[in-house]
């Protein structure tokens, strides 16, 4: 009896891997051989961003420092936590601040969500900046990756803007005056400063119009833009032949 059960249990994983349900989702068995290791990458929308095989240099933690991936993960966490906050948040002068207060006092795990969103936002800005430094100091921008670097600079700017627009949303003294200072800086654009500032704020001062504008930029337009450009960023990494790596010794001589 017991031994029959034991044997059946031992066969269970294989049976699950062979079952119609498993196969309908994953299509291939466990990736412990070359064929399945290729298929697992090609059959999954998430894994197919990766090549089936990577250079050993790419796997060296001291090369990438994991910073690009960390930036991506922080962004995903921001989408998740931001999405949860968006269920409750209302971008009006009367309600925004009250909502944040309630988050801290009466919404279960509300403060945790807000904290996570805010700290992830700061960490993402830092991680993206450090990622740029890593790419620069390893020469990862060189041909044929020139354009991906240019794209990266745009990603950096969008990340700044995302964090900046989010900063206004709690509508407290900190955010109000930070955005006042920040948009004043934009107002110094030569020849059309006043226009630039009015375009950002929807008014001449930081008020309800600005809050709505920043909210829409923050939760819809800028994240959408970042997602699209990140798609291009990753696609380019593949098209540029994976990550940069030192040339083999014999080619350096040439």
């Amino acid at each position, binding site marked *: 009896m017991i031994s029959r059960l034991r044997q059946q249990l031992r066969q269970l994983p294989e049976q699950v891997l062979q079952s119609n349900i498993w196969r309908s989702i994953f299509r291939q068995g466990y990736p412990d051989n070359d064929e399945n290791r290729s298929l697992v990458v090609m059959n999954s929308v998430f894994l197919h961003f990766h090549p089936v095989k990577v250079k050993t240099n790419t796997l060296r933690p001291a090369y990438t420092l994991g910073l690009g991936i960390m930036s991506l993960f922080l962004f995903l966490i921001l989408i998740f936590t931001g999405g949860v906050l968006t269920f409750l948040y209302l971008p009006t002068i009367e309600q925004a601040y009250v909502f944040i207060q309630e988050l801290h006092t009466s919404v279960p795990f509300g403060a945790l969500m807000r904290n996570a969103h805010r700290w992830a936002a700061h*960490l993402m800005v830092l991680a993206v900046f450090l990622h740029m430094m890593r790419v620069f100091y390893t020469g990862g921008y060189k041909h044929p990756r020139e354009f991906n670097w240019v794209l990266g600079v745009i990603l950096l700017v969008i990340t700044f803007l995302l964090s900046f627009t989010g900063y206004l949303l709690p509508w407290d003294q900190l955010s109000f005056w930070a955005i006042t200072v920040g948009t004043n800086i934009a107002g110094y*654009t030569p020849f059309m400063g006043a226009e630039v500032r009015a375009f950002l704020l929807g008014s001449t001062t930081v008020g309800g119009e600005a809050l709505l504008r920043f909210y829409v930029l923050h939760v819809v337009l800028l994240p959408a833009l970042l997602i699209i450009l990140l798609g291009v960023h990753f696609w380019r990494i593949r098209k540029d032949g994976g990550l940069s790596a030192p040339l083999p010794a014999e080619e350096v001589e040439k």
Partner: protein
Amino acid sequence: MNTQEFAPQQQDKDYGLVEVMGRSTPMVNKGPEGTLPSWPYLFVWEALLFLGVSAMLLVMSILIDAPLREAANPNLTENPAKAPWYFLNLQELLLHMNPSLAGVIVPTAVLAFLMSIPYLDRNLSDIGIWFASRKGKLITIWSTIYTVPLLVGLILFDQYIRVRSLISEPELIPGWLIPMAVMGLLSAGLYAVVRPFRPNTREVLVAYFTGFVVTFFVLTIASTFFRGLGMNLTLPWNLPPGALSF
């Protein structure tokens, strides 16, 4: 390699369809040697990083509460009123020159410089090597040693002596000409510092990029931790309550 090893599930086949393409692989300049399957080697790292980042964030979010001040009040100016930390470097620059120059022209020029880097450095021989070379490492260090004290000096100069108290009229001179001359001299000086190394194009770029990064961090730190009431210099422990903008 026999089919059993390569594709154990294809029991009924004893042949494989293999085509040799007459062109290079997408791995530019690299054959399949020196590679490993992404599963598991790459995915393990990614999974670990994801867990690490999430765990760190969770701990941080439990321990530290995000700040929330009084409700926004347009009639009650915060003092000091600070931008978010990653823009504080610009706000710091604003104290030293015409705001159009500090807030718009300099950052635009910096972005243009960053974007032009790959088009200036076309040499592939040192790709993938941290800091390009031993020389590049020394250049990074010397660029830092050169930039930090000069920036700190300039910040102190503008607090205690002030360009504008020496010459305030017309705005063109203290707001534009003097700052542009100072930035030009700083850049030229940086080149003079690294020239003895006989740097190639990439190594010159290493010097200037390092100059930019160090400036970014020095100005950010100065403005975040050393500017109190009225954005005057002070020490971090004398900051008015709530002067930290994160």
